[in-house]
């Protein structure tokens, strides 16, 4: 089932996006702006590490789900085993609608609907595949507008996972502990720092979601650290 589904999806992907992407000449600078949407989860460029999503250096030509040190969804690993390689076409298809291309992958992103955005993003990511070290994009790296105002002390707090487990009851009404994702993102296994930053972004109303702003809004710094510790340990 998965095999056939994937095959069909890939085929459609090639047909629908080949012409556009192959002909389009993307602008890496514009793509850098598009990449802001990805930055909550992905790093790229010098020193890029796995965060919620894998780092994206050398993406082009790589088989899906094969980077060391990142815990992929079963769906992504299977896609790689079935022969999915990241190219102009497959990346474009994936980022257009991640859920349609690889159902049950961990990527909780609605997709880039505009073809221009996809073309520009590909041009930007391509620069890190040719030679990851060479490209410096000052504009983008200087951008920190999405992050919350946080004391280093708050980031350094070590949470009590037992307390986190109790508090997580509130989260689990919507977020599944299995890491499943049917319209509400998975929060299992996140790096604690990313979790803490995301929660404080909601608490400070820098991230726009009323439910999350409310849930995070009533949590203390210690409580956020405790939840981060608990969900990080959950596999």
């Amino acid at each position, binding site marked *: 089932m998965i095999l056939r589904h994937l095959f069909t999806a890939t085929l459609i992907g090639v047909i629908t996006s080949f012409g556009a992407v192959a002909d389009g000449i993307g602008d890496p600078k514009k793509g850098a702006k598009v990449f802001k949407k990805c930055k909550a989860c992905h790093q790229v460029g010098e020193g890029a590490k796995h965060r919620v999503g894998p780092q994206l250096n050398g993406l082009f030509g790589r088989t899906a789900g094969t980077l060391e040190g990142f815990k992929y969804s079963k769906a992504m690993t299977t896609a790689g085993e079935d022969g999915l390689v990241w190219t102009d076409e497959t990346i474009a298809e994936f980022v257009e609608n991640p859920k349609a291309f690889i159902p049950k992958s961990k990527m909780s992103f*609605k997709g880039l609907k505009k073809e221009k955005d996809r073309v520009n993003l590909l041009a930007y990511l391509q620069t890190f595949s040719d030679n990851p070290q060479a490209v410096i994009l000052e504009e983008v790296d200087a951008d920190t507008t999405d992050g919350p105002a946080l004391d280093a002390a708050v980031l350094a707090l070590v949470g009590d996972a*037992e*307390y986190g*487990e*109790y*508090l997580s*009851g*509130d989260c*689990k*009404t*919507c*977020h*599944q*502990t*299995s890491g*499943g*994702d*049917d*319209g*509400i993102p998975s929060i299992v296994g996140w790096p604690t720092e990313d979790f803490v930053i995301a929660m404080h972004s909601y608490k400070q109303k820098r991230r726009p979601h*009323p*439910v999350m*702003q*409310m*849930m995070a*809004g*009533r949590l203390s710094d210690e409580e956020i650290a405790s939840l981060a510790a608990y969900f990080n340990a959950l596999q």
Partner: protein
Amino acid sequence: MKLNRRLFLGSAAAASASLSAPMAMGAGHGKPRVVVVGGGAGGATAARYIAKDSKGEIDVTLIEPTRTYYTCFFSNLVIGGFRDIQSIGHSYGKMAAGGVNVVHDWATGVDRDAKTVALAGGGSVPYDKLILSPGIDFVDGAVEGWDLSTQNAMPHAYKAGSQTELLKAQIMAMPQGGTFAMVAPPNPFRCPPGPYERVSMVAHYLKNNNPTAKIIIADPKAKFSKFGLFQEGWANHYGGMIDWIGSDFGGDNVSVDAGAMTVTIDGEVTKVDACNVIPAMKAGKIAHDADVTEGNWAPVNAIDMSTKADADVYVLGDSSSQGDMPKSGFSANSQAKVCANAVRGALTGSKVFPAKFSNTCWSLIDTNDGVKVGASYEATDEKIAKVDGFISATGEGADLRKATYEESVGWYAGITADMFG
């Protein structure tokens, strides 16, 4: 007088029950025993969390008569054709692996002195802590002309399952240009399945299959939750189809005749083709039988959901009278976790953390047009008190409304996994 008689009958029944089944389940060993009555959003969650977190230190028994539980939330979407009935049915198959002993039987009485729950199938189950989460029953005589004997002619569809399917079938059988009527409930009522989301789903079906049909709602209230959002949505999607008659216009003066299929609103008789009667509600029967109710509901302490009447009996969800939280599955699930933490602490000495509650209710108005309302709550000495809240705005863009609907689908998967494992 009433109290005395009930108490007397209760003890007598329990005495004979314990004679006929002297060695009831769970007796004869040292583990503390928790009995949960009702396997919905409150009861299933509480049972699962106590069993999971106590790691075998507590004996947990869940008493639930049905083998397949149909969620009230998303049951309106079945009526609208957005879900099928199987997709909202859940079995208790994974509960045993989670350490919960599931007994499929009716709890017919509670003896609070002997600390036992009587079962319809015979025998009784002893408890150290009892959690009741029986949902709702209807107040007798709440709608003139309607009682449980007429529930098939004029379904309530307020317990999901066969009633949901029956109402849907009757709507589908309406003649072209026919009339659907709803008698809406007074406050406080279980929600979901919200009456106004239901009207939206009926309208969605009719718009596509019976576009000249009419919908009338007789409502004993002058306003309801998300009033502005629904009025806007109905005007946008179903212009002219829905006639809402609030209490200011006589909607509180209503009677029905299930034989003649008529609804009388403020003296005006209307012949209808399908009629959904949602009477006033009260706590589920077992809460009244246990004598932990005052009036229609069971007053509880906000800090742990224990009843005011008995520190060893807890009431969750719709049946409880707790303060500011709505009677939703989300609320019951949230209360269950606070209760589970407190019960475990009382029985095993585990750490008890402060009570925090939350709720969000999504409603679907039409395809990809979802709205939501929610709040967070804390325990005070008097009640569960609202701290902070939000509601969708009128005039929101289509993308946001679609995202809200998709979020509700994710929430459904999340809460049912949280309830049933």
